[in-house]
């Protein structure tokens, strides 16, 4: 496997996050990492993002919560999570021992909640970066409601920036007219990186039973189906802001990952693909390495933004 490709990348300049390789498991598809401990070597992946953590535990939405669609899936988990206390007390101590970048995805229903979460997580230590989820389509308050306009996104980012020295990554929603405006607001407010895209708001119907397939009615669309939309937004946004972009949406293969890097992403996340192959992150990284070797690229970082005009 020694293909002499330098697979390390660094996301961000002022508060750099150094990754063994550019492939990170995406929030909500990798639990708290530990669920995958039997499936792959957690120390070998670029990093992972935890399921969104909120101040209080959340039960999430009633089932059915997921359904399959053409080359994709809908989910309406509703940000079910153990809550900050259990996360700090039971999960984080185990995560600290892992030799990989642990990014914590956080979700609040108000600006103050984001700030509080960020403050507590910074104090706790062992966190590589915070990822602000201002883009979840499956909750009534906060989430996408925040993420759809530059104002609130800037406000949340600034509030978090004020209380932490950890790298702050802001995860954006694709369900907007102008992703660039929102990206600029986050960058101006002090974000260290932008992660995009979160899921597209969608719906599925069981025609025979005349019922929505998700109890929550709408859900978030992910998987290969959304890759073209994700690539477009990564391309748009990475050209418009000075901070790095972490690209995701439908990545299944190493070549998919290469496409995002070429479009302008500094690293990538793998979400739904973890459900198609629990070792997807490792495989994508290996295939990306093969791709680089094959193309005579000696450092994967050289791909970033390398799309011919």
């Amino acid at each position, binding site marked *: 496997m020694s293909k002499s490709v330098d697979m390390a990348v660094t996301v961000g300049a002022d508060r750099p996050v150094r990754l063994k390789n550019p492939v990170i498991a995406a929030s*909500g*598809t*990798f*639990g708290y990492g530990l*669920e*995958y401990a*039997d*499936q*792959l070597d957690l120390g070998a992946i670029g990093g992972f993002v935890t*399921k969104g953590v909120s101040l209080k535990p959340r*039960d*999430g*939405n*009633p*089932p*059915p*919560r*997921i*359904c*399959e669609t*053409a*080359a*994709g*899936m809908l*989910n309406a*988990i509703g940000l*079910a999570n153990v809550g900050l206390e259990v996360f700090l007390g039971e999960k984080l101590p185990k995560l600290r021992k892992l030799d990989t970048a642990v990014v914590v995805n956080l979700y609040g229903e108000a600006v103050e909640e984001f700030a509080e979460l960020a403050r507590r997580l910074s104090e706790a230590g062992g966190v590589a970066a915070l990822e602000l989820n201002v883009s979840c389509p499956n909750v009534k308050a906060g989430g996408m409601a925040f993420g759809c306009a530059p104002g609130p996104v800037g406000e949340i980012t600034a509030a978090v920036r004020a209380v932490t020295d950890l790298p702050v990554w802001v995860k954006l929603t694709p369900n907007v007219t102008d992703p660039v405006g929102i990206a600029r607001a986050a960058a101006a407010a002090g974000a260290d990186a932008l992660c995009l895209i979160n899921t597209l708001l969608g719906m599925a119907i069981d025609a025979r039973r005349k019922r929505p397939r998700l109890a929550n009615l709408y859900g978030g669309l992910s*998987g*290969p189906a959304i890759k073209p939309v994700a690539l477009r937004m990564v391309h748009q946004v990475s050209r418009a802001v000075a901070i790095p972009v972490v690209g995701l949406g439908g990545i299944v293969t190493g070549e998919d990952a290469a496409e995002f890097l070429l479009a302008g992403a500094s690293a990538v996340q793998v979400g*739904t693909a*973890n*459900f*198609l*192959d*629990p*070792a997807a992150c490792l495989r994508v990284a290996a295939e990306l390495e093969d791709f680089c070797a094959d193309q005579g690229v000696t450092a994967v970082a050289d791909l970033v933004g390398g799309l011919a005009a």
Partner: protein
Amino acid sequence: MGAIWAEVKENRKLGEGIYRLTLHAPAIAPKARPGQFVMLRVAHGNDPLLARPFSIHGAAGEELLILYKVVGRGTRILSQVRTGKTLFLWGPLGRGFDLSGERPVLVAGGMGIAPMAFAARWLAAQGRPAAFCAGLPGLAGWEHLARGLEEELAGSLSLAWSSEDGSLGRRGLVTELLSDTLAAAGASSGGVLACGPMPMLRAVARVCAQRGVACQVSLEAPMACGLGACLGCAIPAAGGGYLRACQEGPVLAAAAVDWERV
């Protein structure tokens, strides 16, 4: 560790729409316990995208058995897979049946026979007495399976059938058979272990609750990861909140489930 490619040794049609898949899966079979399941991908591309959960129907040496019914696109594609092809899967997953009690009563309805047959063979192999109540719509399509099971279990545990059309065993629902069995059997620590369609499980849970018999049920839910990570497979829990069918289940104490919200 991780998912594997397993060679298809046989993919045999047992009846109309009912197939038994034999996989060479040395990394999975020896670890499998009754009630556990695997996540299996039926196609290499995006169509369909997600893996399908299937109970482990049996594990002998390096071979893993899956008993499945064609209900949609994924199982239709699976039914066309030929010997010699390889399939991608991971497991064994989830919590299986607690078989430590004495003289348990196994109950299967329709495809619920898949994991219960594994449990029955498991007990039989240890020479432990148990009762097995198996309910089918009718013999049609299930003949091969029913006869095979009878042969396999002959002399080890008491196997009784019910069928809705009366073509096999007692006419009626398997819950009626279960009530009789429970009435006839003395007290035991094994309790009732059941798998089948949701209305049947609900009825079994009710019967057991009425008689004060412990009851374990294997539940289904749509699944994406099978690993406890995606939280897609929520089952309403008795105390409020949800259990993960793939992690706390698929076998759950009937008392742990909020049957109102299911």
